[in-house]
């Protein structure tokens, strides 16, 4: 016979467990191994250093890196792209060799303020020209993503969940959350519009929320106590989101597009104090096989204007130093333009990081257009070095367990 009390568990559910109150339930749970019992309950009160948010912007379709960060001093660039090239006079010079596409003029202010970092030639060791596979590589952080069920940010959210006890990652946009957010312990949700963050009631929702809150603040025993504090936190968040959304038009207008609306929703969520550490948004349409000049210009303008509005409005909320924006695409495009006025799938490309914490500037220099890798810009910075930098320096997590292998964080943060 095994004596339970002797096994050291009496305090939890043997002796003295007549009425488990919330405190003793939590105390008992502290010994538990499953993640959901760990961490704080109730409102998410960010600890110093754990209050930073990463906004990932995925440019879906393969963004043309050469026409985003333009090597305008390189004649080989102009020769390879007689129709698509951005002339030297049009590119917005960053360091005398590389310049922004003119549609990215909105990012110029961030550059001048020392809040924009460009890392060039970022990619994958053995690039794959398929959208699907290349995206899976970037999402999982594995060069062989076959059978990989979790994403790099999903794994990060697993760790954050245990460390900080918060639902920490969401995708704002239509459809399924991206593989990058797939986690082992939680479903990181997709939110398209803020209706999913609202309460519905047959009576005045504010009155209903107030009455429910009184119920949640009552003394509920055991597990019901945990549910009560989570429910109270959820309803409080819903009220704050409503209040935040009701504030009216943002100071700086967003583009009147899905991407603009999603950024606005992110702003509203952050303004309401939603317990977020990782937010994922997408801008689709970068697969410019034909008629690239118009399309690419419009997309980059949408990107720059959206991010600029988001940063300005977030700044008003006091988020200036708590935001890092990371912009990437699954691959760049071929150096040589095609016959349809477009470009085909390529390899390495620049990534952008925006925020007050970045080491501003161009890192990595212009692409080497002399020594191409099968017609593509070759990779000089493994994409996981960027991930490692973000995980370690921004999210405060150990990168190696998340990325599976050790990568030297790229010194950009």
């Amino acid at each position, binding site marked *: *016979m095994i004596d339970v009390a002797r096994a050291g568990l009496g305090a939890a559910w043997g002796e003295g467990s007549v009425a488990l109150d919330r405190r003793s339930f939590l105390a008992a749970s502290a010994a538990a*191994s*499953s993640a959901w019992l760990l961490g704080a309950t109730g409102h998410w009160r960010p600890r110093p250093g754990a209050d930073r948010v990463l906004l990932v912007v995925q440019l879906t379709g393969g963004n043309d890196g050469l026409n985003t960060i333009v090597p305008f001093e390189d004649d080989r660039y102009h020769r390879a792209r007689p129709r698509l090239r951005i002339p030297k006079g049009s590119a917005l010079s960053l360091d005398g060799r590389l310049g922004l596409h003119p549609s990215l003029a909105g990012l110029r202010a961030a550059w001048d303020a020392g809040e924009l970092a460009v890392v060039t030639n970022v990619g994958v060791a053995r690039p794959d020209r398929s959208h699907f596979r290349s995206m899976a590589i970037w999402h999982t952080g594995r060069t062989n993503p076959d059978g990989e069920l979790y994403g790099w940010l999903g794994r990060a959210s697993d760790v954050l969940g245990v460390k900080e006890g918060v639902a920490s990652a969401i995708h704002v946009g239509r459809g399924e959350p991206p593989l990058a957010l797939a986690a082992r312990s939680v479903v990181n949700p997709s939110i398209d519009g803020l209706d*999913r963050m609202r309460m519905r*009631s047959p009576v005045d929702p504010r009155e*209903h929320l107030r009455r429910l809150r009184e119920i949640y603040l009552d003394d509920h025993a055991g597990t019901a106590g945990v549910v009560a504090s989570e429910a109270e936190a959820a309803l409080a968040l819903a009220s704050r989101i409503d209040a935040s959304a009701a504030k009216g038009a943002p100071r700086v207008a967003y583009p009147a597009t899905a991407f603009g609306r999603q950024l606005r929703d992110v702003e509203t969520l952050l303004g309401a104090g*939603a317990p977020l550490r990782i937010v994922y948004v997408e801008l689709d349409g970068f697969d410019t096989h034909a008629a690239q000049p118009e399309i690419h210009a419009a997309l980059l303008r949408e990107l720059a204007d959206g991010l600029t509005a988001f940063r300005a409005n977030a700044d008003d909320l006091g988020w200036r130093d708590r935001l890092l924006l990371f912009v990437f695409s699954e691959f760049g495009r071929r150096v040589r333009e095609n016959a349809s006025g477009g470009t085909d799938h390529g390899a390495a490309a620049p990534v952008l990081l925006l925020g007050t914490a970045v080491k501003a500037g161009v890192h990595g220099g212009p692409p080497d257009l002399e020594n191409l890798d099968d017609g593509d810009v070759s990779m000089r910075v493994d994409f996981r070095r960027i991930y490692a930098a973000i995980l370690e320096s921004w999210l405060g997590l150990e990168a190696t367990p998340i990325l599976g292998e050790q990568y030297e964080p790229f010194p950009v943060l």
Partner: protein
Amino acid sequence: MAPASMSWPRVPRSAREAFEPYVPGAGCPWELGHAGHLLRRAGFGGTREELDTVLALGPEAASRALTEAEPDARLEELDDALSLVLDGGDPRRLRAWWILRMIRTRDPFREKLALFLHGHFATAHRKVRSARWMAEQVRTYLDQGKGPFGATAARVVKGPAMLVYLDAASSHRRRPNENLARELFELFTVGRGDYSEADVKEAARALTGWRVEADGVRFEPSAFDDGAKVVFGVKGNFGVDELVALCVGRPACALLLARKLLCAFALPDPPPPLVDAFARILRERGLALGEALGVLFASRLFYSQACRRALVKSPVEYVIGTVRALEVSLTGEALVAALDEMGQSLFDPPSVKGWEGGRAWLQAAAWLARARFAFEATRDADRVRRYLEVQAKRRGEADGTEGAVEALLDGDLPDRSRAHLRSWAEAAGGGAEVERAIVQSILLTPEFHCN
């Protein structure tokens, strides 16, 4: 009135006593709350009639009646419907099929155990991409889930859904894929710590040779590694069946199952002595899950303080429980959408680990989805009014609030909250909107989300 849970006994001091039958008598009450507890755990909660039946039977007979029930023949209509729409391939219909079964069945334990096994052998439609194969897998749980775990495991591992999900359908003796072997050890049977990396490699060889084609699973001898393998120190030319039998025979497998079953049906974080004791009960019954849970559902542990409303309801338990209790009719589509929003899309668990459960169900977006579902479930003002009238009449009261708290929560609500609801109802004087809001609120009390 003090909550009924105050009068529930403590957990017996020894693990063996914990699984002895709970005999109602002095200090061991047998009341409505106990019947509700059993019906919620072994099923999805009961109607007033079902509660009365359980009350009359007593713990032992009620446990047997639930765990040994015959399949409900009325569900064949739904099964036939499913077979006709499988060609359409829409996973939402598949989800609706199971949800409607759970709502309508008179044999809820079968569904509840199948739900447990679905989370245990988590397989996702988004990768398998065949509604037919996913349905076939859940059919296995429904048909033989109560029986010996080893037989269920062998059939699931050889099923097309699992072979595709864990990449075994393309595993060849020259390049065996380790995915299925690893999860078979880590998640399905023995758990971490009971096997080595070498065991995984050897097991992967035993799992080669299976091909999945349009009309089913085919064994291709030329792709199978026909050599001797050494797993857990045992040498032999193992195939799938032998490998699964080896795993299931390990003491660690019974321990893993005992722990997971206790977490799902009894209490969170069961202490090791209890897990050991329940593992022994499982082994003595050849890992027959139905029989072992039958013991649990009649045990002193089950009717102790530590189990009382100790688990967080999963979205499925919450939705099915609400629909059954209020007898509302919602479309299959609405039910599917509600569960998706709450984070439990049937046939699409987030990963091979299944749903995390517990507090992970309660993140803000998911809680608000629960609140919106409670709104939908109480949308029909006439039905809400009739429901409250029935509850009021049963207690001979003018207002139905108290009666609804009793019916939906076994009266298990702190006094202040209860008074608050009552005074709201009195102040409003019976407008349809406030009636709806009050029932919606009862569905959103913390206690209603605890099983």
